[in-house]
């Protein structure tokens, strides 16, 4: 009993952290979407020129992945609150947050310097983020499946 209270608090704290992160992250990446629309609106060559197609793709992917991963973080936090006996492991909470940082950041950084059809070196963050995302989603799915 003595140990379950801190554990429950930790789990709640993790879930709250993912929720909080998710909403802030959503704000950041929706803002990025607005910025990209502005670049489109003013036809900024650095972004819309056909020679910068790779940059446009990378920034679009950064926006899409950042937004989606923000929603996944929110969903994970809400799942803890909604599903009895479901626990968001600290490693999963950590992996989800870092996936939501590394994946879009990789795309974004990869779009700043481009080599024709290739993104810049920053794009190598993407597979790291993808592994973290895959781990966390798989872990949540498995843990939910174990609950009777």
């Amino acid at each position: 009993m003595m140990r379950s209270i801190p554990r429950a608090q930790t789990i709640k704290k993790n879930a709250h952290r993912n929720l909080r992160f998710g909403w802030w992250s959503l704000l950041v990446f929706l803002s990025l979407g607005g910025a990209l629309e502005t670049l489109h609106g003013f036809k900024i060559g650095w972004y819309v020129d056909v020679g910068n197609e790779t940059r446009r793709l990378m920034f679009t992917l950064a926006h899409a992945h950042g937004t989606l991963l923000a929603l996944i973080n929110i969903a994970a936090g809400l799942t803890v609150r909604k599903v009895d006996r479901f626990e968001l492991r600290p490693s999963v909470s950590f992996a989800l947050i870092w996936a939501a940082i590394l994946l879009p950041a990789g795309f974004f950084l990869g779009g700043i310097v481009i080599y024709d059809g290739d993104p810049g070196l920053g794009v190598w963050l993407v597979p790291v983020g993808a592994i973290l995302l895959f781990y966390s989603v798989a872990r949540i799915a498995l843990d939910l499946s174990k609950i009777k």
Partner: protein
Amino acid sequence: MPTLSRTQCHGLFVITAIAGAGALTLISLRDFQRESQSPKDRPIRSQIAGYVTSNACRACHPGNYASWHASFHRTMTQVAAPSSLPANMDQLELAFNGIEYKVERRHDAFFVHKRREGASYSDGQQIVLVTGSHTLQVPWLETGQGRTLEQFPFAYIVAEKMWAPVSQTFLMPPDLKEYYSIGAWNGACMDCHVTQGQSRFVQGNTWDSQVAEFGIACEACHSEGAEHIALNRNPIRRFKIHLTTKSDPTMTNPSRLKGPGSGLACGQCHSVWAFNNMTDKIDFNRHGASFRPGQHDLAQRFVVQPSTVDHSDQKDFIRRTEPDFFGNRFWGDGMIRVTGREFNGVQASPCFRGGEFSCISCHEMHLDTPDHADVKTWARTGQLKPKMDSNAACLQCHKDMNARLVAHTHHPADSSGSSCYNCHMPRTTFGLLHAMRSHQVSSPSVKESITYGRPNACNLCHLDQTLAWTAQKLHDWYSQPIPELSPDDQTIAAGIQWIVKGDAGQRVLLAWGLGWEPAQKIAGRDWLYPYLIYSLTDPYAAVRFDAWKSLQTLPGFQNFSFNYTGTDRLLSDAAARAYEKWLHEVRDPNAVYRPETLLDSNGRWQQDIFQRLRTERDDKRIFLAE
């Protein structure tokens, strides 16, 4: 009848939908296979070893692909389609040299019917290819002999939106009515108007021609891309290359090369070249060019320079077998005089000997620099790098000249006389119905005009000045010796001598040059009218065309209509109409004409001198083999 449950109904609906979709897929697959069969009556795109086409380059090089796509290199040869042919082709009816032509459209295909005047129309020959898209477009017809093509005898002049006999779009003697014979596209044009063409002669006049890609595509300048693509599927390899300054060894990038290595990428087509021997010619015909960009010679071929000592046996052979070969392409001192062969000029330039200078010193094949706003303008203006239409081009190397520009040119700094191009690259080459800048960097001299007949840069601007005037200026400013000059050279404007008594090659340069704005500003416009009107009846169609276009640059004649391909009677009537209009409506009664222009105060020629010049016209046959 048994009733179906709700689930069964859903199942039946799903099965029916899948079956329907499957049937539609099979139908579209059949259509796709039918469309993907190669046509038998024209040259085709084929799997030529190592070549992958621009489609494969596009994914990784979207910017370069886009700028190439906007260029006229891409559309140098296209498969005939409503989008690649001039508008309203299906309403076209033309006649030339006793034959009438009628174009008929069937769906997206166009067929040409011919008949001798009074006879019935033949079965249609399909228009299968079209070359050009910038200045002139020439359609090509199937012949029924394999993939051999026949030229449609008319070319579409894009700027004028008009059709003209092909023979009247070249500077060629008026009695020549045909330029390209059947099979000429396969045997000659495709050497340069496609990417890695293989003419593949069969027998008689039958060809089985194949190309890696129609038009001048990526691999024409960068060499074949299969290995490059295969190796660069590995992202680690790609990033290793990105992070170093080294070029990818699987691909040539001419923009990273200098001098001949870079220049020959363009020069493989933009030069007068010939085969080393018959074996190489057969090999080229069968397998295509073995030259690859980056190499320092053309392999089976060589760049023909009449004044150099290389390939003397081959050049002697050319002189014996085709005596007019050099005269049709070069001035007497070996300077190239036809357009499209600019590398001959570049190679012969003193700048080229430095080892750095090449085509890409001033031109760029892709919009690498962000200063360009409009890709279409860039494509239409010679694909020049930013500011390369100014003195900045020469100042890249001749940096000290900026500080002593006026001392060197003896002209105001902001005047056309201080433009490096105007003095050192004057418009002494001709092709596609207009004069173009020589790409052989040279200094103006009177000697070049007297000895070789080439209009010098000074008098191409100072049209109203004599050769004696120019000789004196060049002597005073640059210590050039004053050559022996004829009485006409001392009293009659050089421009007038060239346009009245010059040969057709000189006349056409002047017919264009009289419409050149910087020259008009310097030499005045008032006296140009009668000479341009006179040239409307020149025996050479190209001279008439340029005289017409130059006349349209003058006040009062902007909308002057003229059919430069008309009969002698029509030409004379049009010239008479134009002369009357000038004399009575346009001419400034207060205009003062310099005596060198041979016009009196009423704007009438000094007939005795003018008639003498006319009778002295050099009527030697001129054919510029662009």
